[in-house]
């Protein structure tokens, strides 16, 4: 449980570099809405699916594919 919470924090920390103060809300929203879990319950197994949703959402916000790729690469390292 403690480990999972740490994973959520790691994902949020990386997301902050792209979403700033919106990052905690962004990560929590995707985990809750698309994985149907509480944010602190996310596990390493969830990362690939989480990443798919995150990339989709991010692509709607930016027209810079290199930013999406860089973000995806960093999140992927957590799985």
């Amino acid at each position, binding site marked *: 449980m403690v480990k999972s919470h740490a994973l959520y924090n790691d994902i949020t920390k990386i997301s*902050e*570099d*792209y*979403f*700033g*103060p*919106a*990052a905690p*809300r*962004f990560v929590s*929203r995707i985990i809750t809405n698309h994985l149907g879990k509480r944010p602190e319950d996310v596990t390493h197994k969830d990362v690939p699916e989480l990443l798919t949703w995150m990339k989709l*959402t*991010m692509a*709607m*916000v*930016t027209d810079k594919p290199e*930013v999406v790729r860089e973000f995806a690469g960093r999140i992927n390292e957590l799985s």
Partner: protein
Amino acid sequence: MLRNNKWLVSLFAVFIIIYVAQSLLHEPPHATLEKFHITATQFKLLLLTIVVPYILIWIVGLFGYLHLKSYVEIIRGSKDGEAFNSISKGVLGFVLWLPLSALAAAFAEQYYTAHPESTASLIRAVNYFNLLVLIPAFYLAYRGSVKLTALVKGKTQALPLSISMAYIAFSALYVMLVLDDPAINGPTNTATVGTYYQPDWLIITTIVIPRLLMWLLGVRAARYIYEYSKRVKGMLYRDALKHLAQGLSGILLSVIVLRVYQSLSSQVGRLSLGALLVVIYILLLVISIGFIYIAKGAKNLRKLEGA
């Protein structure tokens, strides 16, 4: 978004109907028709080419505000929520000022054309009315920007020396422009009405100084939001914020340009009809830029929140 703000959307619909009706039903002044050698119908058609784009700017402004308000509702309760709430209220002030100032000026003109003895009082009332709407708008935007800078590490710099010096120079020039206006207290050959109808000391103390202070708040607000957008984490968030800062700068610029235009009314009155229309279209373009950027920034901020 529109459903949740029915009262505001309805209010704007009423403003638009009144403004269009007022523009089309009001008899054009004979002096203007003679000056430009046009008929009343031609005058009204030309007026429509100004009224329609101006109303479109109101609508863009309204949508910009609604996007920002919707973003504020999403982030309510977060650290930056309170700051953006104050900024969005300021933007609402600017958005309301567009139709309110246009309607106030149009109705005042209609009334003093029929009752020339009331011209001075109505011009004075319209000048103060504009200040009363804009001062809270600038203050709220400034207060929100100060709250934003408190959220990032490091001390926020006051205005850089270059901007402060430029503002002081501009202020002196603006005072000169106001006092040098041939139509300051009455009509001239080229201006059908005066600009202030007040003694110089009263114009300076109750209109010019409040305007300059209010604009300074606007300069600082735009600067603080820009500073915040540079220092806050999140490259996508920063991009959206930059548009918001540019939007506020654009609104500030348009308010200043409109006031300078007011002081140059006598000189502008000498222009041919074609040149005058070009000046008016440029003014409309300047006004629209700020609101377009606010709408763009707010829309991107909402997208970050998945809305």
